[in-house]
């Protein structure tokens, strides 16, 4: 069984890599397998993790109020499926509205605290280990860069004069960030590719010990 799994993984890996030559039947077949298997996998995972564990096991021996609460969630979920029928499709807006409201409420506070507050705090508060002149320069540079970057994102005022100059500096800092992100993305993809070749030549063919 283990050998079968290794052979299957190797053939699928080769199938995807074959796209580097050109779009071909093997690649398309692997792509179709990926879509079907992934959909099935997440379907099953959500079924057992949420519907079975959180709902089915949740109502076992629970108080009546908790049971009603969980059944209401299932009722909303079933309403989501009405989207498949034209006449009563509008009912699916109710669970969708719940999801939108819950996401908005949760993310609003989370992002406000972790993205805005924490980042502003970290920018204006000097770190405790600021000993060398290099640390001090970096701290000032980060503060200037963050401020100028924010000015660039402020579109309610025309980017002219000193404001435009600060926005320009902001773009330079953003360009450094995009360059760094690009470099990291390429490196991570390369690392994945090396991992696949390591699997093919090591685990599958046994050429790398």
């Amino acid at each position, binding site marked *: 069984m283990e050998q079968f799994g290794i052979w*299957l993984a190797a053939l*699928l890996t080769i199938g995807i890599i074959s796209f580097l030559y050109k779009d071909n039947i093997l690649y398309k077949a692997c792509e179709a397998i990926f879509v*079907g298997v992934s*959909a099935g996998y997440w379907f099953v995972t959500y079924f057992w993790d949420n519907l079975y564990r959180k709902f089915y096991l949740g109502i076992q021996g629970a108080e009546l109020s908790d049971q009603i609460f969980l059944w209401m969630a299932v009722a909303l979920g079933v309403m*989501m499926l009405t989207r498949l029928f034209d006449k009563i499709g509008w009912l699916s807006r109710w669970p969708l509205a719940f999801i939108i409201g819950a996401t*908005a409420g949760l993310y609003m*506070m989370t*992002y406000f605290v972790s993205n805005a507050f924490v980042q502003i705090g970290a920018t204006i508060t000097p770190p405790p280990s600021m000993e060398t002149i290099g640390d001090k320069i970096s701290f000032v540079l980060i503060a200037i860069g963050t401020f100028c970057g924010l000015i660039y994102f402020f579109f309610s005022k025309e980017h002219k004069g000193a404001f435009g100059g600060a926005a320009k500096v902001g773009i330079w800092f953003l360009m450094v960030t995009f360059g760094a992100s690009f470099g990291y993305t390429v490196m991570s993809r390369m690392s994945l590719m090396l991992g*696949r070749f390591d699997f093919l030549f090591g685990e599958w063919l046994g050429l790398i010990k």
Partner: protein
Amino acid sequence: MKRTVPLLITGIVGTVLIVSVLIPPAQSLGEDFSLFFDIIAVFAFFLGGGNLFRIHLKKVFHRKEDYGFSIVTLVGFLVTLTIGLFKIGNPEGISGSITAAGSGLQTIFVSIITPLSSTMYALLAFYVASASYRAFRAKNREATILLVSAFVILLGRTPLGMMLTGWIPEQFSIFQIPNLAVWIMNSANLAGQRSILIGVGLGVVAMSLRLILGMDRTYLGSDK
């Protein structure tokens, strides 16, 4: 019923979740709503799976172009579904965890999903490299900064960076490419990251308020 009730649901649920963060006794409400959210999400997956099945079945039924690949998708979907729902090959039986070592679903994940997804992502390395070769021309100051930053990070994370600049004396070690890469990551890059994060944070707050207050109703679609 078609528009007012969903707007009320969004407003009430969003407000309750914001209040639950601000008022400690109401924190359990946030957890309850998260549980609600998880259960509804399952049905969203059912809907997605059902749609996938319907679309590909239609393609096979009408013998449309490349319908053979739709058969492969359907077989992959149904086989995974059967193995996962009945926990086929699970050493602990139907009561065991779906991710138990040696279970059918775990084998599918390790032998099919992992190699396919990691190879797909790995392929991007080639396309990103070829796209950047065409796009990364130092045409102006901004493009040059991006190019230099990417180049330093790429070299700094490989042994080549040290090989090229290892000869630089210790007192000027900041100019060694690996150290320069670390400096870029911890200062100039951090400034850009922070401005993006703060911008995104404020954007999410604005968007959430628009949704909760019913100013943005696009998610309701049209009544036609």
